[in-house]
């Protein structure tokens, strides 16, 4: 029986990377068919296959780590680097949208009435729901840290309570933001104000939903005893991602909601 003489993980051959690439092809060409030919078949196939690939790929990572024991400290170090690099790339993604916002708002064109917010645009009051949303996300940052400390201290009941609370706060934020979108007096089509506002806050909202899903999976794993006080990187990765989502919101709030409404 062969044994490895190193601490890395040589994974079993897997179909998920190439199926994931195919899913990306179907999703992007599906968007084209939807925009130009009003057909949603390809897009549906793309999103469905993307979901299936994500579920099975990440299920396999849980099998390899929790059930087969392949995640040595060396492997975990690589995963830490990977998650940090991924979050950094997401930060650059949002940087682009902030650039677009400042480009248009620092020197508003005559077509906008030479002012920001543009003539006729009534912005959302930053001291109403947006301020509540800020408090909600800050509180969720506290509860996820509470959950982490509970895990490292081996306190199962508190960890489950704290993580559940974090997820509920995330859902509360999403619900409030959806209501704000519905109630806003301006739409995405209302000049570059609408474009920058809804694209940036929209992508942020998508990341809140992704982060909430990641945390929910962690809660299920926590309940099923997958985490130990010393080894729970899946949870740490979810917590890093959640803090990132919170920080992006703080920048959105300060720039678009507060400064951008004066």
């Amino acid at each position, binding site marked *: 029986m062969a044994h490895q003489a190193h601490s890395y993980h040589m994974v*079993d051959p897997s179909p*998920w990377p190439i199926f994931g690439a195919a899913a990306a092809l179907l999703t992007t060409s599906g968007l084209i068919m939807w925009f130009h030919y009003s057909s949603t078949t390809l897009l549906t196939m793309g999103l469905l*296959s993307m979901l299936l690939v994500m579920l099975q790929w990440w299920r396999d990572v849980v099998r390899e780590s929790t059930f087969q024991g392949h995640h040595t400290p060396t492997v975990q170090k690589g995963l830490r680097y990977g998650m940090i690099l991924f979050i950094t790339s997401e930060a650059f993604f949002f940087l682009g949208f902030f650039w677009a916002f400042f480009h248009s708002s620092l020197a508003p064109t005559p077509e906008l009435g030479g002012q920001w917010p543009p003539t006729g645009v009534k912005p959302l009051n930053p001291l109403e729901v947006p301020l509540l949303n800020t408090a909600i996300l800050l509180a969720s940052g506290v509860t996820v840290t509470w959950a982490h400390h509970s895990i490292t201290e081996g306190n199962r009941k508190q960890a489950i309570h704290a993580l559940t609370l974090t997820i509920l706060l995330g859902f509360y934020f999403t619900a409030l933001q959806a209501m704000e979108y519905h109630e806003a007096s301006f739409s995405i089509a209302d000049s570059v104000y609408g474009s920058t506002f809804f694209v940036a806050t929209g992508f942020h909202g998508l990341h809140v939903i992704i982060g909430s899903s990641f945390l929910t999976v962690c809660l299920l794993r926590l309940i099923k005893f997958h985490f130990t006080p010393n080894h729970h990187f899946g949870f740490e990765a979810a917590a890093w991602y959640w803090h990132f989502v919170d920080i992006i919101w703080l920048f959105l709030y300060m720039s678009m909601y507060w400064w951008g409404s004066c």
Partner: protein
Amino acid sequence: MYYKFNGFTQRLVGAAASTAYNPQKADGLPVHLKRGVPDKLLYRTTMALTIGGTIYCLVALYMASQPRSQK
């Protein structure tokens, strides 16, 4: 699992965790097929969707690239 009623001990067979799937069994199965039938079904569904979809996509893109017929 099933009840085995013949013999002196009447017991439930196949309910213990050790008779369920063992993720560390050296059976040559890759991790994405380790649980057997449910894994195979999901894998084949995903493959059908992605490969079928890719073919459909190429056909749709070929048709979309044709110039529109003159009126």
